[in-house]
């Protein structure tokens, strides 16, 4: 088995790659934790409008330490800032935006993604206390659902799988995966390889993937700048 420790993309680089696909003016929800990093790497001249479940649209980056206002936070309970154009609303309106199909993109983390687009990212099974937050709402209703993730688990097991073994967050919902090794679309054929890092061969990538990787057109080089975490 190939050792990917030194060749895989960092989380910041995965986030950078995901950010390049976000259009100017897109309404975007980022999952808490790692996906929040995507906001830092928007392409030059593009400005997405970020939505957070707890009732803020078009918020800005984190304030300086000491300038936090704890009534102005995101879904990760981190302090954010106002921008010209910020709006506030209650939770039912917030999820009307989600469930009503008004969000262009949701980007979340994953424990497992299946080749039919099923996503498992909320419960590790019986060992932990489950916590779903807004993930189940987002994955069923955003126009595009993307995942940012390591390609394999800490133990080296594929996170892109034939069928999810962990409890599902949503069925057939993921359309694109930004992994630490590749960009993979999910369509009726299953996993379709779009981009991969040059340091790994297609066969090696397949060996780290739990379901067939299909080709549909040329596979591009996945090149990310050295971005700071």
């Amino acid at each position, binding site marked *: 088995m190939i050792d990917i420790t030194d060749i895989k993309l960092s989380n910041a680089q995965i986030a950078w790659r995901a950010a390049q696909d976000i259009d100017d003016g897109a309404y975007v929800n980022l999952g808490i934790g790692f996906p929040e990093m995507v906001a830092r790497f928007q392409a030059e001249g593009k400005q997405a409008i970020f939505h957070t479940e707890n009732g803020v649209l078009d918020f800005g980056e984190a304030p300086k330490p000491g300038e936090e206002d704890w009534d*102005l936070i995101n879904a990760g309970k981190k302090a954010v800032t106002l921008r010209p154009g910020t709006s506030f*609303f209650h939770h039912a309106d917030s999820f009307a935006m989600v469930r009503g199909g008004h969000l262009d993109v949701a980007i979340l983390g994953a424990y497992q993604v299946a080749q039919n687009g099923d996503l498992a990212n909320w419960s590790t099974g019986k060992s932990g206390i489950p916590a779903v937050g807004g993930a*189940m709402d987002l994955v069923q209703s955003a126009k595009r659902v993307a995942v940012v993730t390591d390609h394999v688990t800490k133990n080296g097991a594929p996170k892109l799988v034939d069928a999810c073994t962990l409890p*599902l967050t949503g069925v057939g919902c993921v359309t694109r995966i930004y992994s630490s090794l590749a960009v993979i679309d999910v369509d009726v054929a299953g996993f379709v390889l779009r981009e991969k890092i040059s340091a790994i061969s297609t066969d090696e990538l397949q060996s780290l993937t739990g379901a067939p990787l299909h080709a549909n057109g040329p596979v591009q080089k996945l090149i990310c700048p050295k971005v700071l975490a």
Partner: protein
Amino acid sequence: MDKTIQTTAEAVAQIPDGATVMIGGFGGSGAPIELIHALIDQGAKHLTVVNNNAGNGHVGLAALIEQGRVDKLICSFPRSADPSVFVESYWAGKIKLDIVPQGTLAERIRAGGAGIPAFYTPTAFGTDVAKGKPVEVFEGRSYVQERWLKADFALIKADLGDPHGNLTYRMAARNFNPIMATAAMTTIAQVSQLVGLGAIDPERVITPGIFVAGLTEVPNPAQEEELNWAEAIYP
């Protein structure tokens, strides 16, 4: 009409053992810490609590749980910077947990307040959360039936309030507070500033007073995050 109540103790005095209590807030923002602490002092137990989270540190909802007052928690995300109180109660079998997806939780509360007994949502279709619930297909897509959620009491936090119970909120502290205000038989608000009738521009009212049974002024309310940095423990 004057719905003003002098103290937080009086405001929560009528909450009985076994009540279902919605508590507003998302993490610390919009959490009615002083009303929760008054409820701890009041002593009601065997409560069912509806909140997005499960408390943080040893104040507010976490303190209510730590005091053994909550038999069941209905929430979407029982994690926080310091969820130790909930986690210990959960593994000790002292508290039941009902996990509800956040948007479904919000809509169940909205439906409860709006007199809609059930509705269909695409959320959770095909997952464990939807097990046992009716599914219907509309325009080719599958939806899960969810029921309204109502409560005996709602404890909420607002910014301005007037004697009729008209309320405004401060930034993202709005979150679950306005919808919980509609879904409880008795809604009690703590407001950071009590103002006279007419002092709130009608255009700015978020919760009209019809949804509010009583309100009490808590100037400079405590913020959960700051209490936790100070390692506060209640009581």
